[in-house]
């Protein structure tokens, strides 16, 4: 290896990488192609948007994906189920706990051990998943405000996110890519004192949430900039398979935590906030942000109840082993399943095909929420102003790691 030449320079190696869909001849007079990206602050990753404009009006948008394509499915089809969990973290690096939870639940369903998981493990999983959901929404709200042009909310959100990141680091040892939820258990029981720190965080953040609402959500400039922009009607959203806060922003009370009632969510009391069009039309960019803020509030409620259970009914005991059910060898019988869970950004589904003879899945497809949510961008932004395009793109809340997979 060493100094082996990796790249041979030839003139035709430097052709433009991805051809445009629109060529000069397709455009009418006055129309123009504006390239947004590959790098842009409102995309968390690498994404090129080919935007056809007529003056300031958007005529069409063609997204070019794949710059980050890291072959998740190919990797998953060559590794045992438990060794894929670090790759699942990297799908959406802002919601690693939730993705791990979805993966672990899928594999447990295949093994038929879903009902045997200890209650304490389930509550720990829900606790860390909800902490991670809040952290993801903090990034979504903060960076969205920055897309619109406000900088302070970004710093505030990053400050509060840091508390969560430190909590999760304390539990798992890593800041963003945890490998904490395992098939059949969790990596380690919560550190002593974790529940109290969670409670302190909830008490600290409750008043901050009111401040946040005053700072962005009710802010006149923010409302002017986002209300009535990028309106997503409900029927279109369902037809495009859009899920998560985007679908709920359009007014449908649809949340897999309630619909599928997986893990211990049925034992926990929380509400599903939906967009009501308080400042403009139902399903606009303001509604989507508002739903995220309200969901943070619901997550606080869930965390409080989990902490209560984890210090009371299912409190730690010296002989509790979170690895008790972790299988040494994961070899599900031959079957096909589609399993799904509610990630902060929407429905994360995994399709598994096991052949029963090997430890690796024969086929594993991930139906990622950001991929499906992004597919509506062209429809959503046609006819709007190019200045509003960033507001629309930001309100979808994508992470390109999950779009490209």
């Amino acid at each position, binding site marked *: 290896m060493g100094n082996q030449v990796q*790249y041979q320079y030839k003139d035709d190696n430097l052709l433009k990488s991805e*051809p445009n*869909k629109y060529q000069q001849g397709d455009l009418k007079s006055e129309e123009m192609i504006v390239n947004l990206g590959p790098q842009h602050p409102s995309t968390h990753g690498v994404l090129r948007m080919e935007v056809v404009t007529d003056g300031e009006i958007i005529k069409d948008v063609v997204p070019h994906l*794949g710059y980050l394509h890291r072959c998740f499915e190919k990797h998953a089809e060559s590794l045992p189920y438990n060794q894929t969990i670090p790759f699942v973290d990297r799908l959406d690096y802002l919601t690693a706990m939730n993705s791990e939870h979805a993966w672990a639940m899928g594999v447990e369903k295949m093994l038929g051990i879903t009902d045997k998981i200890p209650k304490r493990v389930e509550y720990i999983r829900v606790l860390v998943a909800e902490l991670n959901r809040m952290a993801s929404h903090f990034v979504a709200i903060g960076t969205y405000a920055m897309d619109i042009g406000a900088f302070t909310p970004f710093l505030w959100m990053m400050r509060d996110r840091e508390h969560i990141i430190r909590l999760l680091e304390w539990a798992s040892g890593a800041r963003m890519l945890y490998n904490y939820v395992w098939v059949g258990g969790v990596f380690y029981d919560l550190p002593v004192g974790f529940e109290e720190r969670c409670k302190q965080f909830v008490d600290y953040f409750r008043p901050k949430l009111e401040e946040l609402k005053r700072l962005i959500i009710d802010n006149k400039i923010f409302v002017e900039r986002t209300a009535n922009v990028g309106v997503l009607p409900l029927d279109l959203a369902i037809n495009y398979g859009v899920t998560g806060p985007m679908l709920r922003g359009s007014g449908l009370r649809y949340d897999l935590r309630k619909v599928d009632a997986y893990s211990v969510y049925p034992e926990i009391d929380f509400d599903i906030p939906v967009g009501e069009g308080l400042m403009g039309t139902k399903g606009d960019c303001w509604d989507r942000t508002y739903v995220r803020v309200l969901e943070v509030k619901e997550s606080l409620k869930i965390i409080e109840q989990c902490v209560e259970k984890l210090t009371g009914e299912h409190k730690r005991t010296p002989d509790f082993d979170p690895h008790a059910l972790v299988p040494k060898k994961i070899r599900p019988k031959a079957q096909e*399943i589609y399993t799904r869970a509610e990630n902060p950004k929407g429905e994360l589904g995994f399709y598994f095909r096991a052949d029963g003879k090997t430890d690796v899945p024969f086929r594993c497809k991930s139906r990622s929420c950001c991929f499906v949510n992004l*597919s509506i961008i062209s429809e959503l932004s046609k006819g709007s102003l190019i200045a509003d395009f960033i507001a629309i793109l930001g309100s979808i809340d994508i992470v390109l790691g999950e779009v490209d997979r």
Partner: protein
Amino acid sequence: MQFEDIIAKLREVCGEEVIVDVNEEASPKMITIKPENLLQVSETLYKNESLFFDMLSCITGVDNGPEANTMEVVYNFYSIPFEHALMLKVILPRENPVVSSLVSIWKTADWHERETYDLLGIHFGGHPDLRRLLMPADWEGHPLRKDYKNLEYYRGIKVEY
């Protein structure tokens, strides 16, 4: 609506022979149909008022390898108002895998089908814009096929590391 009722309804609307195989072990329960019936069955699933599968969650392409010499496309439907789910499968020959596109019914099929075409080389007849999605436009081969071999060089860049 139970799985048996869904099957009965499909048989009633689309004909008795439309369902080739039923798999109750799968989760959600699965039916297999012939590829030529896909569009008709999907329209029934979407438009029939008692079925009303308004959400197409996922489209998966599966390559069974050169020995089996078949490919499959698996669809996951979900009905939000009725809360029932269905998995639907079509089996295609490996030499020339073609199946009709569902973009005319569910817009979400657009990107899912482009991805399946890109990574497995399954063609979707009637798709408005079947281009590669994740791989570069001039990439050769379909990476999720079981007998896929990496290119040695792509535009002068060594592919194997």
